[in-house]
């Protein structure tokens, strides 16, 4: 197979924080296709090498697909990312593995490399961060390293685009010639003999299951039960296996896993001692330590974190995010009015006019209005992650969140949830553990978002004037409280799987790469538009339809005659035990499906007042202070808006997730409101 007529698939593997994403982005461009690995919610990014056009003919570059495997430290069967990565290489049989190793963390990087080498796939090691090594007066002799490791080793500095040409050249040559790693035996003595014996034992099974023999033998020594199952060995063979390993353990005096780890590190140590001159200084690590003296300082660390979050929050939701959202919203309403004017001129039917301006423009406008917030949020999240600060956040917040079964990283989506649930849920992408991500997504809607503030504002102004601050505060606190309880319940009963042990690297601080940030923004925004757009748009149209027509499908003369109001009247009795069982309240709550701000405008329309301001006069006639508070509690806790629902479905991987969330949130809202209202009745009537 030559470059001219073949298609190549290259798998990119390496530790987290090794510059893998930077390299991937250098080699590809805006053509990245983001999806999931089959059957799991682990993200898979692949693209053709369109960023490599300066190193090879374009036609050739287009035939090479690069698949970004999740960042992993080993090929154990314990985490989803590791299983996904090794299964991809074993099953999909890419033409080559591009293994990126951070030369400043070379031993740990090579620990993964020598496991990859056993997968019988052509492989090239890209030794990254050579610029940092040089700056610290270290050096690497790649010829010696290649010889010791049995695979080509190419020095690069991905962030500076150094060495890419040579890397690609070697990579392709290796792929075309199908050059497999020359060394697959890393152990000596008793361990080596044990692996050898194991290989003989399971060779047939491994070949039958299309599994690389050396890899499987070594993993069996580490008691990899996942692979053992795939081999389908007989009980007798199983027994022989166990005996083999136990004998080895007796001989070496340590347990099997430690024996193998020792062997690996010994082999690596030998190669590194020969091929790498360790740096005499540690400039970047020293700098990181200095920065951490502030950022993970015992007294200042947490305040600084909250300061950073406050700035991000403010910029996302107040300054940039809301300014741009406001501008877009304004543009759309202007366009909508213009369209209305044009249609009126042309004598277009009033219903169609209403459809175009209230459904189409409003629907599109509402989707688009999220985009500035999402972009700003991802921009900051990306900066935090790429610089290395995010790991510090996980470090300092861990103790607080572990009671919910979560890691420190989960604090950020929850804080963002106080601004808007949509970008908050999307920011859970930074969470590496799938379990953590799911729990966090389910808890975020309990954080009272800013769209609910107008609801609080209207009621507080009218019914609780002296207590306004306290009332609003109590709602926020209630939301957090319910979240904590829900979290504890979920941690104990629902997500009972073993949480992944918290061992995390604190990478050295590095300047974020602008290209990486840009591509991330592009991919995420594109993703949101593609997924959320249809859902939100369709939901807007449905609600418009329900608001504009009555039960006989005639245009409704006024809102109170519409189907939506009819539905509201129908479900009103469900809210009687909560204190607000009127058709008006129920319809307003229904309209909150689209956006929380709509609840207030809906109340205004249904009660016949000309403006939202005038609600002041009418609310006290419909609500008492207690029923008003119940209403607010319900609004706080029930289903989030359709945009959030669609994002939840997207992030959880299945559309039913959104539906389940709607039901669960509404049920919780009902239960809590019921409790509060009934207790309130008891207290106030006594």
């Amino acid at each position, binding site marked *: 197979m030559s470059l001219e007529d073949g298609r190549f698939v290259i798998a990119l593997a390496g530790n987290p924080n090794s510059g893998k994403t930077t390299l991937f982005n250098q080699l590809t461009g805006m053509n990245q296709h983001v999806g999931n690995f089959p059957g799991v919610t682990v993200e898979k990014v692949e693209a053709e090498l369109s960023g490599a056009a300066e190193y090879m003919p374009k036609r050739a570059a287009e035939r090479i697909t690069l698949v970004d495997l999740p960042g992993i*430290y*080993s090929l*154990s069967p*314990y985490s989803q990312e590791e299983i996904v990565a090794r299964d991809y290489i074993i099953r999909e049989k890419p033409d080559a593995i591009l293994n990126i190793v951070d030369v*400043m*963390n070379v*031993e*740990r990087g090579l*620990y993964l490399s020598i496991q990859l080498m056993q997968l019988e796939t052509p492989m090239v090691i890209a030794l990254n961060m050579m610029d940092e090594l040089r700056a610290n007066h270290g050096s690497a002799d790649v010829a010696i390293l290649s010889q010791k490791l049995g695979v080509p080793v190419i020095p690069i500095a991905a962030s500076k685009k150094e060495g890419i040409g040579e890397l690609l050249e070697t990579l392709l040559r290796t792929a075309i010639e199908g050059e497999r790693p020359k060394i697959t035996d890393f152990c000596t003595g008793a361990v080596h003999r044990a692996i050898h014996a194991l290989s003989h034992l399971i060779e047939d099974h491994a070949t039958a299951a299309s599994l690389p023999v050396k890899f499987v033998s070594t993993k069996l020594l*580490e008691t990899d039960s996942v692979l053992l199952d795939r081999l389908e060995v007989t009980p007798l063979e199983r027994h022989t296996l166990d005996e083999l390993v136990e004998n080895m353990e007796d001989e070496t005096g*340590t*347990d099997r*896993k*430690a024996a193998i*780890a*020792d062997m690996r*590190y010994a082999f690596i*140590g030998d190669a590194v*001692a020969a091929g790498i*001159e*360790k*740096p*005499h200084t*540690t400039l970047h*690590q020293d700098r*990181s*330590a200095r920065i951490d003296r502030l950022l*993970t*300082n*015992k*007294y200042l*660390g*947490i305040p600084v974190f909250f300061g950073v979050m406050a700035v991000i929050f403010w910029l996302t939701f107040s300054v940039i995010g809301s300014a741009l959202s406001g501008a877009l919203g304004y543009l759309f309403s202007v366009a909508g009015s213009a369209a209305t004017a044009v249609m009126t001129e042309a004598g277009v039917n009033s219903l169609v006019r209403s459809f175009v301006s209230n459904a189409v423009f409003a629907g599109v406008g509402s989707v688009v209005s999220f985009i500035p917030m999402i972009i700003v949020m991802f921009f900051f999240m990306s900066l935090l992650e790429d610089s290395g600060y995010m*790991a510090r956040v*996980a*470090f*300092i917040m*861990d*103790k*607080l969140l*572990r009671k919910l079964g979560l890691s420190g990283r989960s604090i950020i989506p929850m804080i963002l949830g106080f601004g808007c649930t949509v970008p908050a849920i999307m920011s859970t992408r930074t969470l590496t553990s799938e379990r953590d991500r799911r729990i966090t997504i389910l808890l975020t809607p309990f954080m009272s978002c800013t769209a609910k503030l107008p609801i609080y504002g209207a009621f507080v102004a009218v019914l609780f004037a002296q207590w306004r601050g306290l009332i609003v505060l109590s709602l926020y606190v209630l939301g957090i409280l319910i979240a904590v309880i829900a979290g504890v319940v979920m941690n104990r009963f629902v997500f009972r799987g*073993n949480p992944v*042990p*918290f*061992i*995390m*690297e*604190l*990478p*050295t601080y590095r300047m974020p790469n602008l290209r990486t940030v840009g591509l991330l923004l592009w991919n995420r925004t594109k993703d949101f538009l593609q997924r959320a757009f249809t859902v939100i748009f369709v939901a807007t149209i449905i609600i418009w339809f329900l608001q504009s027509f009555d039960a006989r499908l005639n245009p409704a003369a006024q809102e109170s005659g519409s189907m939506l109001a009819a539905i509201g009247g129908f479900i009103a009795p469900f809210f009687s035990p909560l204190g607000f069982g009127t058709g008006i309240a129920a319809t307003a709550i229904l309209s909150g499906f689209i956006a929380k701000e709509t609840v207030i405008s809906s109340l205004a329309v249904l009660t016949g007042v000309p403006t939202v301001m005038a609600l002041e006069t009418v609310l006290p006639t419909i609500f008492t202070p207690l029923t008003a508070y119940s209403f607010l509690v319900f609004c706080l806790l029930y289903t989030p808006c359709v945009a959030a629902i669609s994002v939840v479905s997207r992030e959880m991987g299945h559309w039913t997730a959104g539906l389940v969330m709607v039901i669960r949130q509404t049920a919780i809202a009902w239960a809590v409101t019921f409790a509060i209202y009934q207790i309130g009745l008891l207290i106030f009537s006594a």
Partner: protein
Amino acid sequence: MLAYANSMDNKSIDQLAPGSYGIIKRVEGRGAFRDRLLDMGLTPGTLVALRKAAPMGDPIQLSLRGYELTVRKSDAACVEVAPVSDLSVNPFRLSCDGRCVSCAKAGDCPEKKAEPQK
């Protein structure tokens, strides 16, 4: 210079004083969690330092093999270390047997030459 304590003084890693070093003697336990510790480089014979604890006291930050790791105290309790005292050379430059990895010799390292002999 390095002074090794005898095994009677072995502690678990989380019992080290912040800023002090130890050589890992054993990693207890079984299963996924222990394998993860070994995979991340916490193997017997490795020189490790406890840098600091998080502001709330937990988790702790360890330095080993040239990088920083954080581990929860309860999880770190299964790693047994022999404390190492009088260590005045940057741990990044030491391999686990106390030799300078820059020159692979004990005693010829320019940094060590600059220090007063103990």
